């Protein structure tokens, strides 16, 4: 894959003595949709957080769109402009309205004129079906609505890659579907490159091109969804799947 949009080579990371990422090699093609799963503490969140430098890796190389992530803050900011992220706890800005949350990045980072940024924000709010809430504050919305706003906020930056860090695991069960629907639409309607850390296996089967299983900081197994779920190769994968599919 010469034209990979994300390339991780021999990436290692430690928290103190704890080896959280071990020899990660991963290439992601443009438009590819990857679901990453694994037990708690396996390093899956850390892995995607290294891609936009919310976490620092200590060894190896991470190249995003031809730019290597180093300590150079300008490279990091350039990469963050192209890589959107959706968090488990939404991380919306509570002192700003929904609309202001969406236009903040475009206005200040991309220098988009305010009117244009607002028009685009409204377009994405329509898309996540929440346009009528534009003038409310995040604290006035439900969890599912907040997460949809967060997805729209990332989309407003026109990213080339979207990272999802357990986007549904802080939600009440009845709100999971509305968020997953938005993500499925995003995958089907646009050619967005997506890396999704989740245990939503239905979602994985539906949209993923590839499922990656991680355990103890290593990529143990990766395959197409059907092969991964129906014929897991590794013992640890089998054990994990038997635990999450009741």
């Amino acid at each position, binding site marked *: 894959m010469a034209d990979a949009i994300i390339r991780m080579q021999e990436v290692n990371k430690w928290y103190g003595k704890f080896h959280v990422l071990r020899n990660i090699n991963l290439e992601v093609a443009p438009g590819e949709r990857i679901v990453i799963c694994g037990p708690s503490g396996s390093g899956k969140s850390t892995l995607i957080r290294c891609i936009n430098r*919310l976490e620092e890796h200590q060894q190896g190389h991470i190249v995003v769109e031809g730019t290597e992530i180093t300590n150079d803050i300008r490279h990091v900011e350039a990469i*963050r402009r192209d890589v*959107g992220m959706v968090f488990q706890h*939404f991380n*919306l*800005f509570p*002192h700003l309205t929904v609309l202001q949350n969406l236009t903040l990045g475009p206005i200040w*980072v991309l220098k988009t004129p305010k009117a244009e940024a607002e028009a685009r924000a409204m377009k994405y709010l329509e898309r996540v079906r929440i346009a009528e809430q534009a003038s409310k504050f995040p*604290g006035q919305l439900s969890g599912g609505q907040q997460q949809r706003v967060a997805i729209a906020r990332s989309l407003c930056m026109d990213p080339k890659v979207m990272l999802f860090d357990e986007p549904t695991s802080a939600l009440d069960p009845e709100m999971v579907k509305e968020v997953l629907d938005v993500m499925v639409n995003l995958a089907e309607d646009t050619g967005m490159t997506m890396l999704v850390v989740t245990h939503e296996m239905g979602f994985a089967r539906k949209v993923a091109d590839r499922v990656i299983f991680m355990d103890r900081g290593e990529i143990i197994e990766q395959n197409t969804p059907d092969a991964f779920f129906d014929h897991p190769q590794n013992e640890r994968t089998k054990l994990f799947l038997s635990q999450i599919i009741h």
Partner: protein
Amino acid sequence: MSVAPNVSNQVAAPSVWSRASVLHWFRTQLFSSPLNTLLTLLTIWLLLATVPAMVDWFVLNSTVTASSAQECRKVTGACWSVIVEKHRLILFGVYPYEEQWRPLLATLLLVGVVLLSGVRRFWNRSLLLFWALALAGAAVLMWGGVFGLAYVENSRWGGLPLTLMLSTFGIAFAFPLGIVLALGRRSKMPAIKTICVVYIELIRGVPLISLLFMSAVMLPLFLPEGLTVDKLLRAQVAIILFAAAYMAETIRGGLQAIPKGQYEGGDSLGLTYWQQTRLIVLPQALKIVIPPLVGLFIALFKDTSLVVVIGIFDLTQAAKAALVDQTWRGFSIEIYVFISAIYFVFCYSMSKYSQSLEKRLATEHQR
């Protein structure tokens, strides 16, 4: 009194004041237990012992029309005539008597622009213009020397305008300095962090009085010969440096309350450190610390009275000057009550404003 243990299961205050409900209220609120009965009786006794005497002194037996100290000494209550007589000295110090309309106007300008700054509709660039105009106007009025106004050197300034100036500029400069220090103390760069920590701890370790003394007495010793910095300016700087250290720590408390996710949210959008700080972190952090911060503003306002120790004529010192007049001796209570009332009006306004600001800025959990 109202600490009755059974408060929770009683009915809310009755809207119709029938005799039964009033009696019920008294019984449950004031006499519900032996301890409550005792406290109620004690409070009633205390009120009976003090309130009538105070009303007598402040109002019934007081006079505002006495024309001389002799007449005043005949009344048993407060002699407010001394305020009538001395209010110009108390309010404006030793500013030339004929020119005292100038500090009055300057005070009104200053208060006006501060009030204007409190109105959200004016929170834009035009506010800077208003400030520039008000400050220029106040400076012209106070110093004079142009437009046919006689020049008045600032050693003759005094009273309320001086107190207001010291505290307005004190707050206006200490606040941003405090923000910078608070950010600096949380910086990842060791040099900046160390400087900020050392500054904050050093300043917090000494009383304001000693800083004022240092600014008045020590600083001139270290400055090269011929270079003098105005005494008033030195006191102002001392107040700013002092208040900034305290504000820094209060603001740091607010910064620490901002969850990590907010920084990550900003990072993931590609905001720079300063954008993130200005747009995401500070608005939330400052909102959290409005109550303690306004507490510091109020403390600063009152602490300006300490400039008396270096011979600057603020409101408190002007009041003391009014006391030494031989013919009006012995009316210190009236004068101190008067300036306390002035301090109270300003401090209470700040407090009320901060409460309304808190309510207006509350955006969380208001479903």
